[in-house]
């Protein structure tokens, strides 16, 4: 029997029902057992107190706050997923690469006669000529290349790169990479924040928008970030982006977001999970 919790000083009538009390407090007993416990409770103050404690405990457990993971968890997860996907494609390509030497092995061309000496000399002369042409071209184009090198040392800002990516047909993963590589600090007048906000509001791919959210979170010290996130909330339709935005607004403690969150919690086209997240967010911000 359950001796571990039977106290030595308990009266026999209490000890007999001791194991039933948690189930009674939880409302899990059959009617016959309920009657048995209640008959005892009517005469035993100690067991009444115990039941009251179980009920308080159950309520307090319900009231324990829920800890939320930081947005980095999603970033780390996406990075891990990209790595695994990349590994998967190389695995798929690997068998073809392995197959190549076998083919070579099967059909190897063996020269039946030695190459004429003149042909070897011709090859050497052609190599020298190629090098010479390269050197001449290099000298002729020197000023241009110097400028190019100067440009390379002054790496284009993320803002320029993203703006270019927006006008050119860059792939979603390219855009994610660009956005994810956004710096964590920036100057007051840097356009990075504006470009990231623009990406967050207009990029057709939700994963790029998510990456923009997270990049903006890293730049949270910039005073433009929090209001931009608030304004972006009604523009988003993807539930993942909506939930991430709510999490970030809560993490940034932005009470200005409350009206937008209230509107989102009422939106019929939003998923129940999103509306619930919005309500939780309101609870944490007010």
């Amino acid at each position, binding site marked *: 029997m*359950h001796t*571990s*919790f039977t106290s030595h000083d308990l009266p026999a009538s209490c000890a007999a029902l001791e*194991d039933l009390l*948690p*189930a009674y407090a*939880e409302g*899990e007993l059959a009617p016959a057992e309920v009657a048995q416990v209640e008959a005892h409770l009517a005469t035993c103050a100690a067991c009444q107190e*115990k039941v009251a*404690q*179980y009920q308080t*405990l159950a309520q*307090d*457990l*319900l*009231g*324990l*706050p*829920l*800890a*939320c*993971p*930081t947005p*980095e*968890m*999603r970033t*780390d*997860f*996406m990075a*891990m*997923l990209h790595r*695994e*996907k990349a590994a*998967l494609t190389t695995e798929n390509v690997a068998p073809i690469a392995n197959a190549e030497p076998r083919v070579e092995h099967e059909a190897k061309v063996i020269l039946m006669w030695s190459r004429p000496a003149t042909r070897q000399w011709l090859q050497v002369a052609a190599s020298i000529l190629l090098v010479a042409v390269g050197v001449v071209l290099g000298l002729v184009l020197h000023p241009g290349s110097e400028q190019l090198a100067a440009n390379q040392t002054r790496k284009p800002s993320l803002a320029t790169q993203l703006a270019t990516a927006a006008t050119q047909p860059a792939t979603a993963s390219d855009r994610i990479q660009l956005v994810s590589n956004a710096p964590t600090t920036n100057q007051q007048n840097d356009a990075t924040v504006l470009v990231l906000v623009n990406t967050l509001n207009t990029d057709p791919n939700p994963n790029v928008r998510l990456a923009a959210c997270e990049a903006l979170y890293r730049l949270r010290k910039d005073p433009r970030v929090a209001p931009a996130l608030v304004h972006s909330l009604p523009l988003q339709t993807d*539930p*993942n982006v909506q*939930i991430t935005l709510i999490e970030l607004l*809560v993490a940034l*403690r932005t009470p200005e977001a409350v009206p937008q969150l209230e509107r989102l919690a009422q939106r019929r086209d939003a998923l129940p999970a999103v509306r619930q997240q919005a309500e939780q967010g309101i609870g*944490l*911000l007010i």
Partner: protein
Amino acid sequence: MPLLPVLLSNFQKRTLSPPTETLVETTDEALMTQVQADNLDQLVPLFERYHQPLFSFLCRLTGDREVSQDLAQNVFYRVLKYRASYHAGQPFRAWIYQLARNVHTDHWQQNRRPTADVDQIEHTASYGRSALAHAAATDRDAALQEALALLPPDQREILVLHRFQGFDYAEIGELLGCTAGAARVKAHRALEALRKIYFS
């Protein structure tokens, strides 16, 4: 003859209920089957559904946010790594929680020292609240977290599964390898142990 109406209603059921098919596509199990077939992007919606509950589960077990985040990340890594071991139709929730339990056990064995930064959890989890107005509630929460942290790990786990993760006794029994009845007894014992600590 009652056969005709039955046939008719069956026909109507079959022709009028296509939307259920689109719903079935997005079940956890359907997504996991896709992941298993190397469509790794389908792990993203599963991550969205489970990262918060798993983080919270691990947080309640370890009492450490940072560790829990790493462990939860590790759970998703194991989902990918061991995706071949998932059986089609197997309840995904039970499977991923089993992975989470394993990750936690591994962590527990590697770091046997207690890692109870309970205060840390309280301060970070209750941000945004007015500290003064909720001081009493926060004290109570801290005391309860402390009491939970003092429970033996297996009792803490069963309470967390039942109270916070919404597992019923049958599901807990499946996870722990015992009957639903035995899981219920264990849960009650854990509750009794917690009551003794909390009200002592």
